[in-house]
């Protein structure tokens, strides 16, 4: 029983850690897509954030400057996306693909030019990373059976950015559903012409949505390289931006549901390594590749309308022309 509890706690703990960048990127995706801009450049923003965070943290020794840099880099990518597909009404998917290419190329080129380590950044010392935080009353809570363990092992002891990511979900939800900006943002994704005729600038609204998304992706990138990891490695985003996009769809473009999708995908990822060479009852051994493909398979099945009906923003992907 105790063993099972620890196993579960361990899996959930790992889930949270894997799901953190997914949550942040998914929120970014929701903001962008709810405003009507397809965002497959999440991957590229995540990657550039990760590189800049690690590079600045290693050059200056400051995690905070690293985080700021990551946010700036990611927002810059967002602005480029906006410049191409809002200002110049270019194809949003093409622009996203371009940004992903630029990110893969630039991070490695700049990495080699600055650090001369084949595209990696130097390993950061513990002072240059976000360290795990011990929450209040951990020791006091230890006296309570089970809850004390859960509090110590699962809830406490993560880096600041994990808590930031968890906070981002209610914040995103609040902005989208309770603020004037959120109302307009949702409206511009459904019917930009209505927003325009109400005298609100479609362009500026969509730019703001992309900037908010850039901030989220930047934090996610910093998490990858200066919190979860201790340096930048080439292509370290490894498709997480696309999984986050899948989570956005899975969550039907709603923050809380996307949050659960991220946790589910994170959980799948976390238990994959555990399930290797394990015979499950009835099923037998599950190939690790099948496990890693599951998020995509589930998203495809969901998108095909076999489980419920996805309802994307109606104006998504269509450039707005006055």
């Amino acid at each position: 029983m105790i063993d099972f509890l620890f196993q579960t706690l361990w899996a959930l703990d790992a889930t949270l850690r894997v799901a953190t960048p997914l949550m942040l990127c998914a929120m970014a995706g929701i903001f962008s897509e709810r405003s009507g801009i397809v965002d497959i450049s999440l991957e590229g923003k995540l990657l550039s954030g990760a590189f800049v965070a690690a590079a600045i943290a290693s050059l200056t020794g400051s995690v905070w400057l690293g985080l700021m840099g990551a946010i700036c880099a990611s927002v810059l990518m967002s602005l480029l996306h906006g410049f191409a597909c809002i200002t110049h009404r270019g194809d949003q998917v093409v622009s996203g693909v371009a940004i992903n290419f630029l990110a893969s190329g630039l991070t490695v080129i700049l990495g080699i030019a600055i650090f001369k380590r084949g595209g990696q950044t130097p390993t950061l010392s513990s002072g240059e990373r976000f360290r795990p935080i011990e929450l209040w009353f951990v020791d006091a809570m230890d006296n309570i059976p089970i809850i004390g363990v859960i509090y110590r092992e699962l809830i406490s002891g993560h880096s600041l950015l994990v808590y930031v990511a968890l906070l981002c979900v209610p914040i995103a939800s609040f902005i989208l559903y309770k603020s004037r900006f959120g109302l307009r943002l949702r409206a511009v994704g459904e019917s930009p012409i209505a927003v325009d005729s109400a005298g609100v600038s479609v362009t500026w609204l969509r730019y703001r949505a992309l900037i908010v998304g850039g901030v989220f992706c930047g934090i996610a990138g910093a998490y990858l390289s200066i919190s979860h990891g201790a340096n930048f490695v080439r292509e370290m985003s490894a498709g997480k931006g696309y999984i986050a996009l899948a989570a956005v769809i899975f969550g039907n473009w709603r923050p809380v549901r996307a949050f659960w999708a991220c946790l589910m995908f994170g959980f799948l990822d976390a238990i994959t390594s555990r399930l290797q060479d394990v015979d499950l009852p009835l099923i037998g051994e599950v190939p690790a590749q099948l496990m890693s493909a599951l998020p995509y398979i589930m998203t495809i099945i969901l998108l095909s309308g076999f489980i419920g009906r996805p309802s994307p923003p109606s104006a998504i992907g269509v450039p707005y022309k006055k």
Partner: protein
Amino acid sequence: MRPLPRWADLILLPFINLCTAFFVCGIVVYVIGENPWEALKVMLKGAFIYPGSLGYTLYYTTNFIFTGLAVATAFHAKLFNIGGEGQAYVGSLGILLATAMFAPFLPAIFVVILCIICSAAVGAAWAYIPGYLQAKRGSHVVITTIMFNFLASSLMVYLLAGPLIQLGQQSPQSDLIPESAQLASIETFLSLFGINIASSPLNLSFVLAIFALFVFWVLIWKTRLGYEIRAVGKNQDAANYAGINVSRIIIITMTISGAFAGLLAVNEVMGVQHRAILNFTAGYGFTGIAVALMGRNHPVGIFFASLLFGALFQGGAELDFEFQSITRDMVLLIQGMIILFSGALAYMFNPALSKIFNQFNKNGVDND
């Protein structure tokens, strides 16, 4: 303001976009402390001058023609097939299957033809599903083809590291395909006629690629199906009203697109590696997007865009040897810039250019 003259729209504007892309890359090279001009010279030499380099360039060109055609076919129906990478990857399964089934008892020429057909068929099947899902269930091909790339990658890792792994091998790769299914390299082929050229991976699939360009041209502009594909791309409602079965065309277009992508496996598996290896697609499928955008979905454009990217890939490899701080990763940046300026920002210079042309016309140099 009148629109741009045709030649400016077809040649001048894409040329300006391309130059802008290279210019921005040049700035990046300059910023990291190297001479962009030198880098360009090294790339050109590496792509065309050194012995065998032209062969390598054309070998890459072959890949890009296939993936470029895949993307372009879908573009004509206004579909965005990002899945070329995955379709090409699983295309190799068709070849392995065909060699296992037919190689033991059929003469080489039939084996080769069946292999080519099977690689196209498996690539087509991989694209059929996203096409079907878009046409019948309303899920967007952009998302589904991205997902299918990941699925293809997982599937191939599983197969190449498991059931298909070469016996006694640790690295994930299949057995060698039988000799009857291997395509002759151009070098061997030309030596039959007494012509000796430097060794390179260029093989007879280059001929297949040129043939594919021709097939594409006939299909899109000379057949009823091509007309229907373009009609669906221009306006689905109008096409529907004209009696074209739109969902059928969407499915067929995606299938053809996947077939072109699947042919990439012919070059890599039958022509060069002679086996399926891990990640042999190496991003060629994504480069196809840049190729189609630059080539404006026309076979002639696609050929030259493929040649450009072939030269970039081959010349980019040369950067590794000649420079301290720029590597072949430069090619990723160039690709990104080309997709950005020739794709997403394709019409950025349009207003400025129109103004210039109108100015000319006002001054009495009216020639249309």
